């Protein structure tokens, strides 16, 4: 079975197959890039949405991230580092977005996004009122936890446990050494462990899932 068939059948590509796709895309192969985009769009959208909590902004930013990736792909030296490189672009775009929003909020042109945690989540996606309340509560806990983290702790913790990157990928994404990543992660997990309200919430959600009739 060749690479194209594998991708069409939604079989997760191996590292070598991904590298081949990146190589092809780097040479200007649009089909190869579209396949890379299809493979990574969900995780990039998730990364952006988790950090902006706005569906429309996340859609625009995801589009922008992939356009930037396509534009600057010839500059990527090591095709094995495509994923951390893409995440780096995504984090930079999200940071730019927050910087711009803060500046506009400071000027009074837009409202601060501090309280926009659940505002952009459409009701039709969440017809159950209880789910909406749970969702709102969850984002509130996440925000409180994030406030306790330093900037690096926040980046490292969310990249590890929400975006599911391994230590090496996080180090490559943030341009830090693995030991530095471990130190930030260690501090962040300590703070996470100390946050009893979030622990209780997770425990409750867990129990709720278990108790659901199958």
């Amino acid at each position, binding site marked *: 079975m060749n690479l194209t068939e594998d991708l069409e059948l939604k079989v997760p590509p191996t590292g070598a197959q991904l590298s081949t796709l990146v190589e092809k*895309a*780097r*040479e*200007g*192969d*649009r089909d190869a*890039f*579209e396949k890379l*985009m299809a493979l990574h*769009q969900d995780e990039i*959208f*998730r990364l952006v*949405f*988790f950090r902006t909590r706005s*569906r429309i902004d*996340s*859609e625009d930013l*995801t*589009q922008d*991230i*992939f*356009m930037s990736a*396509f*534009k*600057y*792909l*010839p*500059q990527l030296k090591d095709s094995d580092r495509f994923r951390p490189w893409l995440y780096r672009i995504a984090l930079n775009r999200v940071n730019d977005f927050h910087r711009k929003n803060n500046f506009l909020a400071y000027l009074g042109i837009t409202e601060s996004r501090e309280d926009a945690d659940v505002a952009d*989540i*459409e009701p039709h*996606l969440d017809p159950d009122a209880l789910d909406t309340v749970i*969702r709102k509560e*969850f*984002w509130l806990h*996440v925000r409180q936890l994030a406030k306790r983290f330093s900037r690096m702790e926040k980046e490292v913790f969310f990249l590890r*446990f*929400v975006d*599911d990157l391994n*230590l090496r990928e996080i180090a490559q994404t943030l341009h830090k050494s693995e030991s530095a990543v*471990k130190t930030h*992660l*260690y501090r962040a*997990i*300590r703070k*996470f*462990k100390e946050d009893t309200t*979030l*622990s209780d919430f*997770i425990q409750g*959600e*867990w129990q709720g899932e278990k108790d659901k009739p199958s």
Partner: protein
Amino acid sequence: MILYRENGKVKKISHLDDNQIIEAVIDEKGLNGLLRRHLSECPACRAQKEMLQARLARFGEISRGKIPLGYRKPKLIEINAGEMAKAWTIHPALAICAALAVLALFLTPIVINRDNLFTKSVVYREMLQDEKFMAEVRSLEENPLPSFSVDISGPGSNGPNIASPGHSAKNDVSPALKHGSRNA
């Protein structure tokens, strides 16, 4: 009971502490060999580590579950890979060469000579204009009236030609005065 060396000191513990559990969650291979062996053998420590790991994993799952699924998928708009980057990127060496070329153009002797030539030509032109102007002034001094006025104020007319200060005194004296002076 575990006896292990940390920062040159021998430590004696019965179970892994909270910090060591966190370290094990982050990277178990990074743990001290003795601690790692204890972790694999001690069910209590293992359970603690797995509980923390599960909580973190659950946090990730819930976070991912709160993301909307039916979002607008990104599309590749019509540009070729690296096209924009190539169009807008100027190689630093090329930029330096261009700057030096512009500088050289301004400092080259040809430019300086051309500048001198330009200055001289302007001076010559101005001198010619001055000479022309002075010639006009001189001609006006000699003959200030237009030609028809000169005809009117010819030698047969009465009175002094006050409009012609350049005329000689002999011409300015009227015939009556000439006559009177003769009588005197």
